């Protein structure tokens, strides 16, 4: 009798665990990762002959609630047509009953994999501005992301910035229980955390998000109190993350922007992602930042830095002119 090797058995197990896309237009290529409630595979659209990312429900789902949530995530993505949000191409059900949706396959690197040596402060702030634009767009469409963090931002090969994983997004002005798109992901707030255990039992439902990036009101499970400022808090945490591991020490106005965004009292935060993005733009343009009051000396220093090239040119002229005057007088 021939026995199967452990390796062969594990291969068979892996093969049997793969979703069966027979009867669909997609062909499975490889597993690329896992999200909030599903696994993401690289697939090929055999009709259009292009690569796609396929997100498939990967949890036992007797009630059908998770399937509904995955579909809801697809619906939310579909209503957010924006260059900073990965487009959904298709959604459906496999032969085994599992729900899936197909989206654009994004190649690039996650924001938490930025290179401290290569990615300058300017690069990081440009990326952050794109995130602000995208989140502001989602807010304008009445959608809160609720799990903004560096792991959920992809920077593409051509500089495109995409906010990913809208699995726990919330539609504003709707029943929070019905419209949160899914459970927290593997990095999200741990249910076993004693400080959060009580909130998990509240009438408002589960705590969704990631510790360190979620706002205090989100951590307390006050779902009905969440608004754009909750995502602004998470963006402040992302900005703080981007300001770390830099070759140069970030300027004080930038730290002030992050602090304002992460104010414990949400009244002290930026009112919107747009307002936060505008402060970043002001910093990049050498204009005053609302989060950082300046004294006269700092105003002069900022002005001098903003016009440093012109100042150097004028000084060069004056030096050369002085030398010419001395020469003429000889």
């Amino acid at each position: 009798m021939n026995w199967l090797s452990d390796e062969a058995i594990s291969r068979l197990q892996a093969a049997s665990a793969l979703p069966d896309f027979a009867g669909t237009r997609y062909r499975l290529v490889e597993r690329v990762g896992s999200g909030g409630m599903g696994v993401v595979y690289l697939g090929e659209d055999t009709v259009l002959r292009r690569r796609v990312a396929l997100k498939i429900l990967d949890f036992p789902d007797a009630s059908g609630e998770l399937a509904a949530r995955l579909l809801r995530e697809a619906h939310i993505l579909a209503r957010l047509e924006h260059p900073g949000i990965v487009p959904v191409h298709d959604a459906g059900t496999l032969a085994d009953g599992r729900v899936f949706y197909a989206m654009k396959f994004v190649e690039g690197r996650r924001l938490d994999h930025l290179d401290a040596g290569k990615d300058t402060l300017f690069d990081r702030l440009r990326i952050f501005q794109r995130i602000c634009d995208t989140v502001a767009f989602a807010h304008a469409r009445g959608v809160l992301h609720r799990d903004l963090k560096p792991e959920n931002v992809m920077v593409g090969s051509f500089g495109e910035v995409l906010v990913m994983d809208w699995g726990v997004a919330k539609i504003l002005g709707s029943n929070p229980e019905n419209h949160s798109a899914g459970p927290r992901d593997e990095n999200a707030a741990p249910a076993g955390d004693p400080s959060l255990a009580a909130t998990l039992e509240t009438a408002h439902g589960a705590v969704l998000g990631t510790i360190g990036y979620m706002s205090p009101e989100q951590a307390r499970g006050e779902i009905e109190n969440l608004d754009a400022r909750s995502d602004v808090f998470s963006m402040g945490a992302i900005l703080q993350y981007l300001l770390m591991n830099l070759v140069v020490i970030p300027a004080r106005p930038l730290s002030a922007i992050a602090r304002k965004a992460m104010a414990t009292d949400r009244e002290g935060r930026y009112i919107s992602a747009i307002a936060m993005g505008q402060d970043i733009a002001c910093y990049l343009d050498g204009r005053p930042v609302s989060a950082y009051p300046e004294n006269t000396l700092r105003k002069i220093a900022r002005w001098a830095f903003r016009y440093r090239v012109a100042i150097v040119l004028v000084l060069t002229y004056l030096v050369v002119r002085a030398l010419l005057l001395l020469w003429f007088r000889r």
Partner: protein
Amino acid sequence: MNKVAYGLILGGILGIFDGLTSWFTPEVRSQLLTIVVGSTIKGIVAGVLIGFFARKVNSLPLGILFGLSVGLLLAFFVAHMQHGYYFEIMLPGGLVGLIVGYATQKYGSSGHSTPSRV
């Protein structure tokens, strides 16, 4: 800031300084105001011309050469009207043109419309 505006402002500022340095020449000190106004106008005209050139031609050597030529030419006219001081007027004038030529090639937007950021 577009290249023409950049050239105008820088040319104007350098023109002011150019005129003010005539204070160090006692023979013309009494005409200081006239000289400052004249050299400011000269700097502005040179700056605008050099700025337009920079918008059309994207070349640092050509920009510097054009700036130097315009600066020298305008200064020559001024010196010619003064019937003298050619060297004292043309050398700083050329220097202003050279600096503005360099600056407008290196800095300032071309002024053409660009697609908005997405």
